[in-house]
């Protein structure tokens, strides 16, 4: 036997930096327990930034390695940088919370780094094994950080619930993957696309199971049941993390698998995505109306937003994928901004989570109230804020693909959903103040200001984001 050649490792460089860096920080944290925590947090953000810079500096064009299992194209670059931004913001937003709750542990940052490593692998995965391993590496740290307040019943319940349901969904995904492998004889997406042809009942069966696993990970209806409980139970910075970066990676894997592995079966999987998308939009809009806890409300809001993002995938065209990418980018800024505001809802007695506590915010904290109101308007999709453009691109793609019913239902549910966003704005501007919050920490102000300004001024110059998303979408087809 001749010696195997060393695979090309250049495309893997960002993942390598993150993985080795995370392990080095683990050592630092273990040996310098007390004084190492601040250093580990700062170093984790530096590592995420370094990985982002390396991704930007990688040679242009499409690169594959490890026999085609790992692919770096425009699509991967765009989403990887988004995921890194989301994770870095999540670590920054956890600093103050950890200081107050006295539960600061260096493992939190290390676990987020390893989860982000999983996201990058997932975004680049071009076969079923790499997809599954990336997914598990992303999810396993999430289960742990959800339960990281181990003395709190709600937190441990959230972690356990997430873990058990996550294992179930992994099982479904693996079952689907094994059926697909059985019917096509290969695990690589290109090979599946080649062998699938017009499909057959068995292959469709496999796709249904695979998509069920995907829907669980992006919390789309009917696999959304875990979301409100986990969002409410997990510590708030962890919830902020859940709502941002893992959703980006989940949507990335959904889009890449659907578009590159099953291009000949678009009309088949389109039905699934259309149903999931309508159900998510409807549930996200109607179920959120009765919520009084702002974290539960954000959970339903994220279910709805995933439904809107999937409208673009349902179109199955380049414009559709471009719409999805613009949507997740804008969704991430909106979510991070709103969570920065939620994390600043702290009174002397501790964190508060009820939306009634926001009453009269415009008089006690006018700047916070203004930015939060703008972000909520953006989530509701009111022009000229960024959220309007996000919805505009996905609905445009759906109409161009002839999915009129889907687009109309999307607009209707978006109007219903506007009710609860506007209700919070009404509470903040027209109700009697419920009392002042503590001083807002520096890093939360930065995140809130950046996200708020991005959403307000996106309409002035949308070309860069839309252009990059369009190039990324074209690299898939």
């Amino acid at each position, binding site marked *: 036997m001749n010696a195997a050649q060393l695979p090309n490792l250049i495309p893997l460089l960002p993942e390598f930096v993150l993985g080795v860096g995370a392990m080095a920080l683990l050592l630092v944290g273990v040996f310098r327990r007390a004084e190492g925590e601040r250093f580990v947090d700062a170093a984790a953000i530096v590592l995420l930034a370094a990985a982002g810079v390396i991704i930007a500096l990688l040679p242009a064009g499409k690169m594959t390695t490890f026999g085609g299992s*790992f692919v770096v194209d425009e699509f991967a670059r765009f989403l990887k940088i988004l995921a890194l931004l989301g994770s870095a913001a999540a670590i920054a937003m956890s600093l103050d919370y950890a200081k107050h709750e006295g539960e600061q542990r260096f493992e939190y940052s290390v676990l987020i780094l*390893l989860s982000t490593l999983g996201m990058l*692998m997932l975004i680049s995965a071009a076969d079923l094994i790499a997809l599954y391993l*990336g997914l598990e590496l992303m999810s396993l740290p999430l289960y742990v950080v959800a339960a990281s307040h181990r003395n709190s019943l709600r937190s441990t319940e959230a972690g356990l619930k997430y873990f058990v349901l996550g294992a179930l969904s992994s099982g479904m995904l693996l079952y689907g993957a094994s*059926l697909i492998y059985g019917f096509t004889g290969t695990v690589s997406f290109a090979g599946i696309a080649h062998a699938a042809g017009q499909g057959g009942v068995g292959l469709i069966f496999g796709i249904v199971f695979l998509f069920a696993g995907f829907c669980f990970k992006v919390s789309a209806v009917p696999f959304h049941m875990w979301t409100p409980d986990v969002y409410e139970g997990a510590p708030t910075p962890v919830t902020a993390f859940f709502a941002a970066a893992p959703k980006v990676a989940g949507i990335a894997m959904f889009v890449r698998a659907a578009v590159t592995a099953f291009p000949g079966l678009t009309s088949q999987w389109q039905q699934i995505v259309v149903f999931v998308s309508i159900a998510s939009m409807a549930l996200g809009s109607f179920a959120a109306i009765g919520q009084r806890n702002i974290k539960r409300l954000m959970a339903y809001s994220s279910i709805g937003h995933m439904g809107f993002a999937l409208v673009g995938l349902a179109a199955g065209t380049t414009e559709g994928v471009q719409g999805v990418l613009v949507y997740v980018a804008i969704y991430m800024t909106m979510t991070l901004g709103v969570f920065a505001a939620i994390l600043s809802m702290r009174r002397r007695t501790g964190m508060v989570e009820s939306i009634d506590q926001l009453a009269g915010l415009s008089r006690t904290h006018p700047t916070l109230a203004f930015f939060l109101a703008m972000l909520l308007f953006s989530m509701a999709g009111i022009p000229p804020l960024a959220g309007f453009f996000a919805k505009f691109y996905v609905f445009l793609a759906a109409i161009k693909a002839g999915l009129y019913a889907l687009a109309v239902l999307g607009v209707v549910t978006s109007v219903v959903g506007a009710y609860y966003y506007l209700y919070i704005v009404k509470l903040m501007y027209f109700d009697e103040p419920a009392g002042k919050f503590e001083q807002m920490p520096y890093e939360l102000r930065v995140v809130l200001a950046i996200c708020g300004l991005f959403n307000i001024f996106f309409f002035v110059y949308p070309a860069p984001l839309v252009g990059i998303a369009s190039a990324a979408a074209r690299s898939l087809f």
Partner: protein
Amino acid sequence: MLLHAIFFYLFAGVTVASAVMVIAARNPVHSVLFLILAFVNAAGLFVLMGAEFLAWILIIVYVGAVALLFLSVVMMLDVDFTALRRGVLSYLPVGVLIGAVLLVELLIIVGAWVVGPDVAKAITAPIPPPAQVSNTQALGLVLYTNYIYFFQTAGIILLVAMIGAIVLTLHHKPNVRRQIIAHQVARSKATAIEIVKVKSGQGLP
């Protein structure tokens, strides 16, 4: 061929029977022992198929590690398993019904099994034919070469599992006195003993 068939039915029959006993046994320790029996017989099935590597892995990992871990957990924890599992058998009819529906659906799928013309070409065969190498060797040839990426990723996932277990269960108690060998070795006569002159008849203050 007849011998082969006899052993197949022996292993398969015992596997299914012991799997039923795992959920039906009253004593949880018996359940785990039946689980071990099921694993060993499944390993026998693998050997019959010529997958001896999988058979050994099944015995070493599942019987050697997982089942024994179960056994020690069952024996150590004070959980009333009989109360926990009360009613499992009363749910059996519904479970059997759902299982039957799934089985029928699967049969329909298998019945509609059409292998496309390109599938045979798409299957890659990175290993030499079975006549040349045993399957342990064949796995070894690709596991650390073609599949090194997957192998390393699996390793990182296991690292995460370890970190997670420690994060969720390790409590640092403040008053624990740990042995610090460097301090013990660094003791000298001056720091270790104190000489007190005691006047006779007075004792220590």
